[in-house]
Each structure stands twice: as structure tokens, then as C-alpha cells.
């Protein structure tokens, strides 16, 4: 076993000779394992790129589908919302009136029973 200092003193030629030493056993499946790791890495890279593209596409689509404001003036916009809310409350009023009518009817029926 060589120490760190001994390894640092080795020349490139020495390292090449050590590398060529056939006494060091190479795992039989080494060539199989390396490509698989590369494939996984490539797969993740493709997935990441696809996710980025989908994200950018979604962002672009979202911006393109954004409708244009009907009003430029916030006072006019406010007035339109106010009018719509008045309409909504009109609906609530009509529904409440029907409930009152029904209650009056139920009271009458109960009275004659």
C-alpha cells in the first residue's frame, strides 16, 4: 500500500504502468454498469428539459389567453362591478321574497288545519 506522499511523487509514466497492471481485477459487469448510470442521467436531463419547456409553454399560453380589460378607467370598472353586485343582490331579494311567500302559504295551510 502506497502512502499519499509516495503517490504524489509518481510520474505520469509510473501511473500509466500501474494502470496497465493486469493483476488488478476489473469487475466483469463494469461495462454494463457505466452505461446504465449514463442512461439514467440522460433520462433525468430530458425530463428536466421537458418540464422547463412545459412550464415556459404554460406561462406563454397563460399570458396569451389573458383577456383584455374591458375598462381603462378604474371608476368605470368599479361602477360595472357595483351594477353586477346590485343584480346579484336582486337575485337574493327575489329568492328571499319567494321564501316569504312560501312561509305565508304554509302559515295559511296550518291555520286552516
Amino acid at each position, binding site marked *: 500500500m502506497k502512502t499519499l506522499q509516495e503517490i504524489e511523487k509518481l510520474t505520469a509514466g509510473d501511473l500509466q504502468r500501474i494502470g496497465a497492471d493486469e493483476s488488478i481485477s476489473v469487475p466483469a459487469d463494469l461495462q454494463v454498469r457505466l452505461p446504465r448510470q449514463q442512461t439514467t442521467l440522460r433520462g433525468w436531463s430530458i425530463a428536466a428539459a421537458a418540464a422547463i419547456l412545459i412550464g415556459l409553454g404554460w406561462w406563454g399560453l397563460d399570458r396569451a*389567453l389573458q*383577456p383584455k380589460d*374591458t*375598462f381603462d378607467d*378604474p371608476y368605470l370598472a368599479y361602477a360595472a*362591478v357595483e351594477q353586477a353586485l346590485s343584480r346579484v343582490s336582486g337575485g*337574493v331579494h327575489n329568492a328571499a321574497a319567494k321564501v316569504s311567500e312560501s312561509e305565508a302559504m304554509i302559515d295559511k295551510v296550518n291555520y286552516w288545519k
Partner: protein
Amino acid sequence: MKKLYIILMLLTLSVTALAQSGRDLYNKYSDKPGVEAVYISPAMFRLIGRIPDIEFKDSEVDFSPLIKTMTGFYILTTLDPAIGASLYDDVNRYVQSGHYELLMEAKENGEVMRMYTVGDPKTVTSFVMLAHEGDEVSFISFDGNMDREMMEKLLAEAAAEQ
């Protein structure tokens, strides 16, 4: 690799699910002839929020605290029978596919008015009103972060006033 495909599929599905909104309905109908359409963007609502002391002119009820918590607003109204029928069906599909909860329904002589909300017991994040009165079909929708109690109180006050 299978995991990657599943992740990509989920991502695509989530994108498709997000695409279902009031905006899609607005985009589909707003340019059609005979359709009255109003859209108010979140940016416009931010501007409205900066206007001090707006008064509700048509009523004694002050809706401004509610309006200032809104972030988006859509109105579609049509008298065209074919477009109206299609809009009515689309809105019904939209509220059924979302997490909308029926708040109120009133029916009389074939006329229908329904209100739906999304949110929790304290907050309303989306409101939809669909009305079919005679030939007229109206869709009103607003999004925001609105206090449920305040919204219901204001609407009830305005209704009592009519």
C-alpha cells in the same frame, strides 16, 4: 424511466386541470355576436383598491370593502337563444367540475337563478351566478379573497333594500 413519464403525465394533467376556469368561458363567448362581456383584471382591482372612499351610488349599501378584496371579474350576458343554451350548459359543467357549492337556487315559471361559491366557512375565493330569465342567460363570476360573512351580510342588506 417510468417514474419520469409518470411525473411528466401528472404535470400535463395538472396543466389541463388548471385550464378550466371562468376565463375559458369568457374567452369562448366574449367575442361572439350578441354577447355582452365585461372583464376586470386583477391589475384593475389593484387600481380600484387605491381609490379612496368610493360610494355605492345605486344603494345605501357600501360594497367597497367587498370589491376591494376581489381579484377578477367576468360578466357574460346574451339574448341569443343558441348561444344562451350553450353558455348555460357550459357554466353548469364548469360549476359541477369545480369545487363549487350551491349557495342559492330560485326557480319560477321556467326561470332559473343559481349562485355558487368556492372557499371555506370563513372565506369565499370564487363566486358564480347563473341566471336564465326568458331568453336572457347571464353569467357573473368573481374571484378574490372575500370574507364570507361580510359578503353574505352586504348582499342580504342590498336585497332587503330592493
